[in-house]
């Protein structure tokens, strides 16, 4: 059985300087090529996911080899690393429209659930999400795609109602791009 050509590597745990340097050095030593990645800090907790490819590199790389290369990261027990083979899955566009949803208000359980339920109900897909708790203020910013033909105004109205039900306000705006 041949080795997968694409891996999703996740690293999560307590933040400290040098995590990315160590992780990418281990991957580079295997000849893996970094593709898409995202990393952030969540209240001091490091969270990173990256896709790395063996295609075009120095040949097939087994998952066990990737894990071995990243093993120094987990040596002190503050970080967890997982390596998962994945397939390249480009998402075909089917006329979706893109939107930015902002929700903010007093913190309480259930805000995210109440609001994103309305997106899911029309087949909408959230493509990026950030939430922040700053004191009493809870903030959600999401980027989402709505299927072609969906009435965005009606979705916005449903979201507004859901938000009002949990005591927050919502704004749904077109994620317009400037043509230059």
């Amino acid at each position, binding site marked *: 059985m041949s080795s997968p050509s694409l891996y999703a590597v996740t690293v999560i745990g307590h933040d400290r300087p040098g995590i990315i340097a160590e992780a990418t050095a281990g991957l580079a030593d295997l000849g893996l090529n970094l593709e898409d990645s995202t990393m952030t800090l969540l209240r001091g907790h490091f969270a990173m996911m990256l896709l790395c490819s063996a295609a075009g590199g120095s040949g097939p790389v087994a998952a066990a080899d990737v894990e071995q290369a990243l093993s120094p990261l987990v040596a002190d027990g503050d970080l967890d690393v997982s390596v998962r083979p994945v397939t390249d899955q480009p998402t075909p566009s089917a006329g979706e429209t893109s939107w930015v949803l902002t929700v903010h208000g007093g913190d309480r359980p259930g805000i995210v659930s109440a609001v994103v339920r309305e997106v899911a109900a029309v087949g909408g897909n959230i493509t990026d999400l950030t939430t922040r708790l*700053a004191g009493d203020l809870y*903030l959600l*910013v999401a980027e989402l795609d709505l299927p072609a033909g969906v009435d965005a105004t009606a979705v916005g109205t449903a979201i507004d109602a859901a938000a009002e039900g949990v005591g927050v306000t919502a704004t749904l705006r077109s994620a317009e791009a400037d043509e230059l």
Partner: protein
Amino acid sequence: MSGAERLASWTEAELGVEGRVLDVVRAPSPVLATVGDRVDPTAPETVQLAADLVATMRVSPGCVGLAAQQVGVAAQVFCVDVSQHPKARTHHGTFALCNAEVLEASRNDKGREGCMSVPDLTGDVKRASRLVVRGFLPGTGEEVTVATDAFEARALQHEIDHCQGLLFLDRVAGAHAVHARRTYL
């Protein structure tokens, strides 16, 4: 006298009342999400509110603008003063406006904004860098139309948004355009 000249000559002394320093409201206070009522610019309560906004702005380090919602009043009144800000190009000193509206907006620029009412977060917001605004001066009620640019244009749009119950959070460019604030002004 043009609108620009009139604004540049305006000072809070015209209001004839002493401004009070008020507490600044923070999100998630509902008033920040409330569309402000249009006001009578000549009404004594409007004049006092304008004076209070200027006084509160003056004592707040780094503050270049303050809207009525930020002192707990859902009204379309705000003040700005970007004259000391390094990003300002055109500016008109300290002034307050009632019932202001954007007439023309062009040349969007993205910039990172903070707000006294959202002290723990900043956000990347695209705003017009060329702006024409119409409003009414508190006290005399004169209608003024003024063109501005750069940082004063951004400040005016930020304050007009407050008057419409919108925070910069409602206009951030995307899910990764919100940031924890690291320094406090």
